[in-house]
């Protein structure tokens, strides 16, 4: 099955351009006339992922794979890694700095939001090596939201 693959760079601490990769993915899905709810879910997850990299990670990559049945979003970085993934998955848990909170980020909803908006999500992380998040979204319209 034909699959479209694309990768986008996420730059360290680049708050100005954070979100642009997700916007590109969003536009691809729009030109395919994918269901708007699915576009919304993929966009939200992509953006949360991008922000995580910009805030905590080092350099990162967002890659997307689209075929007729699903969208797979993968966000990886070479940052400090997540110490306790189970803890990080809890709503409200955040390691954001005061400064980041002042900017309106770091509510501890990033990963839980990604989990809620994707059909399947895996998080792999190793301390000092980086984090890799993989989310899949089914094209069939059976999402909860």
């Amino acid at each position: 099955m034909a699959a479209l693959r694309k990768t986008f760079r996420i730059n360290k601490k680049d708050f100005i351009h954070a979100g642009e990769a997700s916007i590109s993915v969003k536009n691809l899905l729009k030109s395919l006339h994918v269901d708007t709810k699915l576009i919304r879910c993929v966009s939200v997850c992509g953006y949360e992922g991008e922000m995580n990299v910009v805030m905590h990670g080092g350099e990162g990559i967002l890659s997307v794979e689209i075929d007729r049945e699903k969208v797979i979003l993968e966000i990886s970085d070479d940052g400090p890694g997540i110490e306790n993934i189970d803890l990080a998955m809890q709503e409200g848990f955040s390691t954001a700095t005061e400064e980041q909170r002042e900017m309106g980020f770091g509510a501890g909803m990033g990963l839980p939001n990604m989990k809620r908006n994707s059909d399947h999500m895996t998080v792999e992380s190793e301390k000092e090596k980086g984090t890799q998040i993989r989310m899949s979204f089914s094209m069939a319209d059976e999402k909860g939201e």
Partner: protein
Amino acid sequence: MDDAKKAFCYVHVDEELCGGCLHDVKACPTRAIRMKEGRPVIWEGRCIGCGECIRLCPAGAVKAATSELESVNEDQISVALVSPVLYSQFPGTMPKEVLTGLRQVGFRHTVDMSYFLEMFQCAAEEFIVRNRKTGEFPFPLISPVCPVVVRLIAVLFPSLLPHILPIMRPVALMVREVKRQISLKYKGKEDSVTLYYINPCPTKMDSDRMTFHHERPYIDRALGINDVYAELTRQLEKPGKPDHPDIFDYKPTENSLIWGISGGEIIDMHIRRTLAVSGLEETIAYLEKIELGLFRDVEYIEFRTCPEGCVGGTLTAVDKYLAKNIIRKTFRKGDIGRRVSRDNIHQLYEEGRFSAKSSLAKLAVTFGVRNTPLSIEDLMKIDELLEQIHGMDCAVCGAPDCRTFAEDVIRGKASLGDCLVLQARGMKRDA
């Protein structure tokens, strides 16, 4: 261009003035313009009437499709519905005098919109407060007042359609009331009444009515503020104007004057978490962000695609910063507060008299899926083409950027031979 054709577009091009530059092609937010054989071709189904091409055309060749002021004198009973932005064009002149001036220009009646802006504001507040409890509509809710924003969402951000506040726009509330009053006063002669809307936006005329608004009831004709400016100025300069009160005498309020400036809609709203954004580029950037899930803690966003708000409208006559200044000065002279009775509004609200749900749904269909979807294979081919072209969005092919050009090629609307970069590299035509 013949009149019939003109009538279906928001804008049209005066071919004699057009110098064949690419400003409009590049400026169009929905990528609706292509340069074909040195002349811009507008894909009207995708045109949302933002007026950006009118603004940027250096030759003044792109024009808004509005009616002619001369026709006023041919009408039996002409009624001017006035956007408060009109008042901001005349320094030192109070709104009442502007309306009198319009009647001297030839309108039988003049109606000020202020009262209906207040009505809208009350209904909007009511909706937002209720929505806090029901959560029926997603926050942030988006103001439906700027018609370009509503169409922009329908064309480029369809997933945000549920965010548009489903309350009838002030102009529609005004037309409904005016039509009611007309049928009382001119019983049996309703057909000889022509409703004109004087406003700062490009307007599209359908065969027999205006589709500038997505909701009923319809207006018959639209005039740009710049269409009436010269004649109105002449009238206002005449000394000793007699002033007879009009049957549609709704006094303009301070609140309405400020609506012309970005932020004017929300400043007096009893809602705390609001934002006002103006300018086309900024509006698009914020809509992108809302689609990414941001601003969920904001309850209401006022968008205006014109810079600084409606005073920056494409069809205004006076500079937007001057107009802002005029508003601030007039604003200080006036002393009228809100007059709408909240209880009355609640009553009407309960009766569903403000709901615009069905008209928004209709709009989504009209402006929605105008483009056939691309397939995953198409997108892959577009990527291959882009790699081949490796251009710099020069737009000489007539498309605004390389990606759009590649998409046009895939859709069979352009030929690879149109690309100068490929030609320069010795590619064969129609490769």
